[in-house]
């Protein structure tokens, strides 16, 4: 379109959005997932519960990428924070998931705030470097704080969130509910003043500053939000897998989260989150025999998707520029 006269079509009414095919497909998918436990085997239900929990972790990384333009290879730290919060609360205080989850979220929030504060005004690469240190520091902290964390062996999470109900289905439905709620909250964030402000700060930090949005506020907010989500995911993972141990929270698991986010194209809705979560949960099982090929494969995925996405955006720009009179 070259001038204003061509844009006379009225703005689309908002009411129509609820009926667009994407939303309908998502609703149908949730419906399918709701009835699935009635027909599926125990292992699938267990895997899917983990998949939902991991999907929240993938979302936490995608939030950081989308709203902050930052990359983290240390989110295993915040996932562990949430997971151990639930496990330690159960062991020390005998309280279950419904106390553990808010505590986990709070721990993630505080952890994220404290961690992002030092690099709040610096280029994102400093954040990436410090997240690497975070991921590498985590295992030694877990292993050497045996009194609380159970050291190498970790801790069991045995308490059922809803006492008296069968174990597997309640984990499945809780994880699914948490995932759907997180997706709904993120959809709302996109339209909120904070969401708009963060996206503006990512695209043009200087311009954002002229409208009262400082770079430090944006960096700290995004990171704290992302860390909170990661910790919630950790709390759910702890319950879904019945145990926590240092092995599941290494630099590798942080990189897996990033890979999961990258394969889901950093999407913030249910379907991409499930794709990322499935990648994290199922692929390691199927690749167990592939052994040494796993890093190569994951590396190729990171490199390939990143290059493809970037050349696609180039291509689109060339096409749209060519198409304009």
């Amino acid at each position: 379109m070259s001038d204003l006269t061509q844009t006379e079509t009225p703005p689309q009414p908002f009411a129509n959005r609820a009926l667009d095919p994407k939303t309908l497909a998502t609703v149908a998918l949730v419906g399918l997932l709701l009835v699935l436990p009635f027909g599926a085997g125990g292992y699938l239900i267990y895997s899917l519960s983990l998949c939902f929990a991991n999907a929240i972790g993938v979302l936490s990384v995608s939030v950081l990428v989308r709203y902050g333009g930052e990359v983290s290879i240390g989110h295993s730290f915040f996932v562990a924070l949430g997971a151990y919060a639930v496990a330690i609360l159960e062991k020390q205080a005998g309280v279950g998931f419904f106390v553990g989850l808010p505590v986990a979220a709070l721990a993630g929030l505080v952890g994220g705030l404290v961690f992002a504060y030092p690099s709040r005004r610096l280029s994102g690469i400093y954040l990436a470097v410090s997240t690497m240190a975070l991921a590498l520091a985590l295992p030694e902290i877990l292993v050497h704080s045996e009194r609380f964390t159970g050291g190498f062996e970790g801790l069991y999470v045995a308490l059922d969130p809803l006492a008296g109900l069968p174990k597997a289905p309640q984990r499945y439905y809780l994880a699914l509910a948490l995932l759907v709620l997180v997706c709904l909250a993120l959809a709302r964030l996109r339209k909120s003043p904070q969401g708009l402000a963060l996206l503006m700060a990512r695209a043009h930090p200087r311009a954002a500053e002229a409208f009262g949005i400082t770079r430090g506020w944006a960096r700290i907010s995004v990171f704290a939000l992302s860390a909170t989500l990661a910790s919630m995911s950790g709390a759910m993972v702890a319950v879904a897998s019945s145990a926590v141990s240092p092995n599941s929270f290494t630099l590798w698991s942080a990189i897996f989260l990033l890979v999961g986010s990258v394969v889901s194209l950093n999407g913030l809705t249910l379907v991409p989150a499930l794709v990322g979560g499935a990648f994290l949960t199922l692929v390691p099982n199927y690749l167990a025999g592939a052994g040494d090929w796993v890093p190569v494969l994951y590396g190729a995925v990171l490199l390939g998707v990143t290059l493809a996405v970037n050349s696609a955006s180039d291509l689109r720009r060339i096409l749209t520029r060519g198409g304009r009179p």
Partner: protein
Amino acid sequence: MTAIENRSVPQRLRAENLRLSFGAVQVLKDVSVDLEPGRITGLIGPNGAGKTSLFNCLTGLYRAQLGRIAFGGVPLETLPPHRRAALGISRSFQHMALCPDLTVLENVMVGLTLERRSGWANAFLPLPSGTREDAMARRKALAALESLGITAVAEILPAELPPGTLRLVEIARAMAGNPKALLLDEPAAGLNAVETRDLMRALQRLIRPDLVVVVVEHDMDLIMQLCDRIYVLSFGQIIAHGTPAEVRADPEVVRIYLGGDDD
């Protein structure tokens, strides 16, 4: 003047004896300007004259080594850009600074960030207070688009619009928060003749008795037609100021602009 003034009293933006240098290069040498509400003031000068540096000192991107800046009596020198924004000083950008992921309307709503009160709980939960505020912000943003005649593009992404419209969106965003000073950085850069004419009409509609409007430009014709007062900068100094007619008659200005220094 007292530090806190009534909102209804028109405030002027003044800079006195600004001096700015980068290393050994003096970019601004004792520059003073008095920008009055209710009229459009132009800052003009050849490339490298210091227009953009002065503009950046006013908006807070640069900090002058010497001199004072005050808005309605409130000293600004040491305030960072976001604090100046909170005082009602708003700006547009020469290189368009719209967010490509947001629609035009949402980009304009970013201009309202400072007056939004809803907290993080509202960002995630559909609380009534947040929903009400959203609707209000939407109305204000639409009103800003309407004042520039571009409501039709509200739901469109910036990438699909021509530069002339994008520039108007930038100005709408700067106007949305009902600022007391509006600083426009080369608003006509990259626009064709038709777009420039549309822009000029839109800008003339913005004049309000309590609004300071400053336009930095090197398009002499635009400034002459649009502005009520003009400051001419050359080599970091104000060499002339006055009405368009006065400036046009100034021999020094004539020498610079006809002497081949202009690009």
